[in-house]
């Protein structure tokens, strides 16, 4: 029976319905930027944007090197690892 456990685990990890969910640190982004970061009204979309471009953008907001309405205040609360994981997720979403 033990033999089957890794097989089941692999199945769970591979299942697309699970894999498409945003990491916990990126969940808050969805509450303004829309489902999967698709954008909502006047708030720009994050979905499908280049990962490196998103990371650079967030770094610029954090460093106060880019004019921000609200993103400077937000990005300074997150770690580089959380921003990288979030950028990875959004870069993989369809526009």
């Amino acid at each position, binding site marked *: 029976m033990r033999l089957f456990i890794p097989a089941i685990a692999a199945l769970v990890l591979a299942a697309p319905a699970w894999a498409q969910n945003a990491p916990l640190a990126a969940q808050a982004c969805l509450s*303004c930027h829309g*489902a999967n970061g698709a954008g909502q009204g*006047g708030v720009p979309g994050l979905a499908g944007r280049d990962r490196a471009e998103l990371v650079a953008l967030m770094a610029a907001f954090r460093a106060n090197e880019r004019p921000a309405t609200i993103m400077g205040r937000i990005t300074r609360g997150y770690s580089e690892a959380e921003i990288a994981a979030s950028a990875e997720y959004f870069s993989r979403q369809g526009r």
Partner: protein
Amino acid sequence: MTTTRRALLGAAITAPALVQAQTQARLLIIGGGFGGATAANFARRTYPWLQVTLVEPKTSFVTCPYGNLVLGGFRQIADITHSYDGLRARGVTVVHDWATGIDANARSVRLQGGQSLGYDRLILSPGIALRWGAIEGYDEAAAQTMPHAWVPGDGAQTLLLRRQLEAMPDGGVVGLAIPGNPFRCPPGPYERISMIAAYLKRHKPRSKILALDAKEAFSKQGLFQDAWAALYPGMIEWVPASRDGRVVRVDPRAMEFETEFGTRHKLDVANVIPPQSAARIAADVGLTDNSGWVPVNPVTFEARAAANIHVVGDANIPGPMPKSGFVANTTAKQAVAAAAAALRGEAAPEAVYFNTCYSHVGDDYGISVVGVFRPNAEATAIVEVPNSGGVSPRGNLPDQRRLEATYADSWYASITQDMFG
């Protein structure tokens, strides 16, 4: 292993439904607001192996956020009313009933209709109770004359206050009684003042707003007061506790507020936002402390008094985080993730909590406060991340104000989609 079981497991590899059936655990959620609806939707999206049931007495949900825009005439009540059909379509079992009791040992919730529901993990998001009688004379009957419009229910309280504003003569006085901390939606009373002022400026410009406050200071105070001076000069008088702002008694027949030092204010429209506590079920089950709110674990949001019951939304004491819809949303997701981890015998995931409270103060004029929060190193308390968050900059910044008003609308659309979509 028997042949039958081997065959079953073999089939499971190609049939996820069977894997789910074997591992299916029951997540029961009480309360279908910002905490509970978020929890239900997030649980179904993220952990399809969870069997999710939501208990909520109302068949549709009227949000507190944007209720002030209904008062100002910027939205209709239908614009802020949401159906549970989207959650049903996600596979959530929605039960429209009142939860009247919780048996934590038997892991069972009793419903008013007589049914009992078992659970493996419970998310409790019951909201607040208004403390009737905390202000002398303010009870449920008084609220029919002096609406609170703070627990929207079916929207009747918000619509009552709106009708009263519409019926008021030009030159009348609108009074607000505002409570001390903590209470639901810290910037809410001041957004309400702003939205009422926007309506009066347009339709009854000789009217006044008298805001009597039990506090000395309030959320985004400088930004609000800048906006009031710029947009509604001479219309709004805000009175802090130290200038006898604390309302201790109301008289709905005479339409009067009486303050701590005996000043009586005669009003044309009276909005009483009374002191609050966690909803009654939290106290009945013994989850509240002397404050009337529920202390929780900063990582799992389990009640300190009952592991396995995760308490989210305005009923808990979330450290320095405000009682806001966004905090209910962000903490509900962490609570569900912690519950799912516990069911799989894993540790709770690392937590980061997020809040933004936007307030509309006039046409194309929005302001905000942002906070990012984490458990401290010992996981004994929640703390704000240093050098992050904060309020919008002050000064004459029309582009900033216009953008924040736009972003507020996007927030409302996105978060309600995250909850109900």
